[in-house]
């Protein structure tokens, strides 16, 4: 009788996930928990980290095997499988439907005035992308193929949708770890960037105040999206879908006659896309898929890309200062890495700590927005050179 109870109890246990919990799952649950902690307690990009962290935790709570004797499958992975709700969410990412929609929303929420007002600073949008190429060369040295290395390098562009876009084109099998690295580091920029920025600047440089930007007229703001869309479609067709949608969203905002559409693109639609995207990304973080040498290398190279990108942006700004009579605060250089508006906020906060009268946010938004184009241009050139359409 007792043996029978024990047998049935054991059989019942095998039907649950508890018997299949591995140390890898525990590590990933801790990582997911840390993401949620940083989002709630430290306010580090909660819109991204809550969804990624939560789905990372759930993806690592194993359920019963899908087939008797097979590997455990978590409840979240059930909905990721074909026919499940988040399967279609992930397909939206993999089939490149979601990245252009994110750009549409970003465009509808963004005022490109700071970039138009100070065109000299757009060069920082290219200067802050050295990290892409450092990571690319190191990835090749680590044994990745050139296409895989290019996809890993683009993490340094600090632009989630662009990282997804380029990765799907170059190395779709790396989409999970690359999107996780890109979005996680973007969210963690307030921790990653300041030490590099402070190391490369003197307290005097951090205290530099910048003159107020000129007012940009409505006509300029209306011409801007059309001009950029023409330039990008003309010269960089591989990345045109993203920038075109960014500019369409911006035109909806600036036109003044499509307020409803701009509000939807930058509001409700964007929120839906963020929920889908973050859960889709977090669901790829199951320990058995995520905890391997390649992923660890990709995550490490992504961090290096962010560090070098931040450093090269600050150094580019310092080099520009050598030729300028009115000096710029070199802290805005790191904002050229993209990741709108996180990197601009970091520049502002670090400058504000050095000089409480310093409000760099609008100045930093110029290079920050230029960084979006810088990443797109780098990605477009990379795809063209690698012969990928």
């Amino acid at each position: 009788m007792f043996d029978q109870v024990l047998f049935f109890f054991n059989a019942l246990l095998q039907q649950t996930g508890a018997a299949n919990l591995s140390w890898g799952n525990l590590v990933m649950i801790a990582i997911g928990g840390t993401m949620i902690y940083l989002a709630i307690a430290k306010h580090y990009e909660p819109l991204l980290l809550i969804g990624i962290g939560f789905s990372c935790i759930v993806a690592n709570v194993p359920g019963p095997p899908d087939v008797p004797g097979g590997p455990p499958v978590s409840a979240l992975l059930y909905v990721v499988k074909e026919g499940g709700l988040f399967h279609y969410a992930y397909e939206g990412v993999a089939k490149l439907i979601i990245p252009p929609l994110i750009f549409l929303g970003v465009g509808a929420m963004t005022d490109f005035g700071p970039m138009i007002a100070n065109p000299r600073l757009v060069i920082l949008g290219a200067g802050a992308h050295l990290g892409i190429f450092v990571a690319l060369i190191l990835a090749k040295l680590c044994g990745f193929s050139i296409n895989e290395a290019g996809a890993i390098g683009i993490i340094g562009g600090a632009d989630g949708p662009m990282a997804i876009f380029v990765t799907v084109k170059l190395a779709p099998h790396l989409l999970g770890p690359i999107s996780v690295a890109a979005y996680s580091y973007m969210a963690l920029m307030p921790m990653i960037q300041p030490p590099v920025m402070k190391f490369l600047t003197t307290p005097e440089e951090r205290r530099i105040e910048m003159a107020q930007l000129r007012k940009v007229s409505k006509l300029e703001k209306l011409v801007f999206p059309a001009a950029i869309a023409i330039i990008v479609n003309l010269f960089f067709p591989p990345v045109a879908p993203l920038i075109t949608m960014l500019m369409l969203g911006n035109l909806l905002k600036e036109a003044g006659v499509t307020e409803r559409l701009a509000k939807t693109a930058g509001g409700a639609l964007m929120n839906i896309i963020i929920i889908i995207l973050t859960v889709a990304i977090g669901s790829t973080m199951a320990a058995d898929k995520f905890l391997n040498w390649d992923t660890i290398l990709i995550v490490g190279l992504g961090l290096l890309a962010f560090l070098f990108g931040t450093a090269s942006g600050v150094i580019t700004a310092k080099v520009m200062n050598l030729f300028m009579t009115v000096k710029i605060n070199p802290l805005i250089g790191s904002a050229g890495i993209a990741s709108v508006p996180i990197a601009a906020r970091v520049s502002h906060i670090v400058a504000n700590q050095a000089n409480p009268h310093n409000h760099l946010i609008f100045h930093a938004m110029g290079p920050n927005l230029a960084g979006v184009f810088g990443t797109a241009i780098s990605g477009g050139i990379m795809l063209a050179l690698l012969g990928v359409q």
Partner: protein
Amino acid sequence: MIPDTVYGAVLLSIIDFFLSFVVIAGIGIVLALFPYLNRLGTIDEKKLRESGH
């Protein structure tokens, strides 16, 4: 086009980094011309908003 070697990766990086600077500088030049647009006239934002949907 680019060989799948470390040399290829370095070559790709140099070309891409250099061209990115050139193109971004080009966009900067286009933006520097934007203030001249204001010579064409001004747009009444209030009127635009009133005619919105």
